[in-house]
């Protein structure tokens, strides 16, 4: 099982997090699926973190990985 976390405008649309089975999918696949399910905006600008580190679109998700979708940041 995997925890998928959302932030900023994605959180407003999809909630704080969901649990789903994502093992074996690439980041790109998961992102596309979740974007469609929750009608997420500007998903092409969203980065992904696996276990609190940035991950590329081609990375394969393992069971237990915590995934976070990271919109363009605006701290500071």
């Amino acid at each position, binding site marked *: 099982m995997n925890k998928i976390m959302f932030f900023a405008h994605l959180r407003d649309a999809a909630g704080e997090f969901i649990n789903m089975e994502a093992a074996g999918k690439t980041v790109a696949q998961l992102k596309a699926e979740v974007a469609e399910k929750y009608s997420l905006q500007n998903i*092409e600008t969203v980065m*992904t973190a696996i276990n609190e580190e940035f991950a590329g679109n081609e990375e394969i998700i393992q069971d237990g990985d915590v995934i976070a979708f990271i919109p*363009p940041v605006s701290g500071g």
Partner: protein
Amino acid sequence: MNFEISKEPINIQSVIDKVIQREAGAITTFIGTVRELTYGKKTLFLEYQAYEAMAVKKLEQIGREIEERWPGAKSAITHRVGRLDITDVAVVIAVSTPHRADAYDANRHAIERIKEIVPIWKKEHWEDGEEWIGNQKETLAYPGGKPEGKDLNE
């Protein structure tokens, strides 16, 4: 704990205290405050949200980058989250170095990197609406789905 996300108002002096060293002659701080006007539009208040565990890791990464690039430098960063009003302090960056030019350069590196890689977001609240702000650096698209090269934790 030189790198922190805080739900409470930031005590600037306590961030400075973390970087004092006998070998350092210069300390710079950057204090980001909530500005009332941005491009002529009046902000009522802001809301900051963080992916806290990852944000702390990324702040620590910035600290390591500074130590590698400016030998003898020591840094501390606290970023606030939650609701902030005009003139409230959102972030404090303190850097100490033996010589002063480095203290400015290293500090500026920190704020630029915060705006690139630290997962913190702000929502602006205006009289006529609210919006999550992104892409302050106008580097919107990451075609690879992530920051490239030096943006990764290495």
